[in-house]
């Protein structure tokens, strides 16, 4: 079996881990503030909160899980099932309503 040098992708460029950490912490504070302080219509509030959550999740996946620096094939493999998740939730919602 051929060994792979795991340090090969160590030189990738991107925000520092600490910077991503700061952004995640600030976004968490913003989420709580928006949920309890801002007087917004329910639909807008839900969209903002979901948007912030997806933003945070993407930061973790792209930079902490290094998905941004992985080979394109792996990236597509990870992305491929996500529409299935949306279909799953969509069908559940349609069934419920």
């Amino acid at each position: 079996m051929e060994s792979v040098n795991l340090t090969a992708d160590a030189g990738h460029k991107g925000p520092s881990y600490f910077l991503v950490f700061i952004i995640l912490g600030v976004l968490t504070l913003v989420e709580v503030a928006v949920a309890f302080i801002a007087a917004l219509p329910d639909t807008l509030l839900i969209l903002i909160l979901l948007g912030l959550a997806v933003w945070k999740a993407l930061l973790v996946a792209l930079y902490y899980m290094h998905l941004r620096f992985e080979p394109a094939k792996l990236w597509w493999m990870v992305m491929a099932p996500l529409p299935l998740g949306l279909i799953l939730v969509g069908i559940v919602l349609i069934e419920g309503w």
Partner: protein
Amino acid sequence: MSNTTAAALERPTTGPGSGFGVYNMKLGMWVFLLSEVMFFTALIGAYIILRFTNPGHFAEPGVVLNVPLTAANTFILICSSVTMVKAFAEIEAGNQRGLRMYLAATALLGILFLGVQAYEYSKLVHEGFVPAAEFYAALGRDGAGAVEGGPLYGATFYTMTGFHGAHVTIGVLCLLFTTVMAFRGRYTAANHGGVEIMGLYWHFVDLVWIILFTIVYLI
């Protein structure tokens, strides 16, 4: 099994025909995590439909659940993610001491997260918010008075956060094992697949919590 064979099996490899440009162990973890995405998507989808078709069962955000405490716990999990990724960066640079320190810190933060969640559960149960009952009658926060509702709130809350907590528990056990292996000098700059695989799982647990926190506690 000879030492040579054992070393060959543990070594990260692309393997013949893996085809994704990453070693097999890492590819396997990604496939596993994708199955986990579907698992949690099903839970979240079921929660959304139950929540919006049975509004009488659920309380407004922050009335029953302690959001400030859980926001702090979310921050603890985010901290554990940064220590985990720092552990990976340290061993990439060949720094054994840094690897051990950050792995141990990650495990401790994971244990702290579980401790806070256990405290949250005990307080909620004590206040009357139980997982399985015909109805709940919990103490409302911030002067909201007594709150009543149907059984779906407790059932969905404890199911979703409980399954996530189980994942964190498994992660902590694996982290402790990885930390012990690190102290034994198992990982090197050229061979640290175990740390990377551990990190992928741990970050995924963090990622799922980010979504759950918003959906269960804030919406």
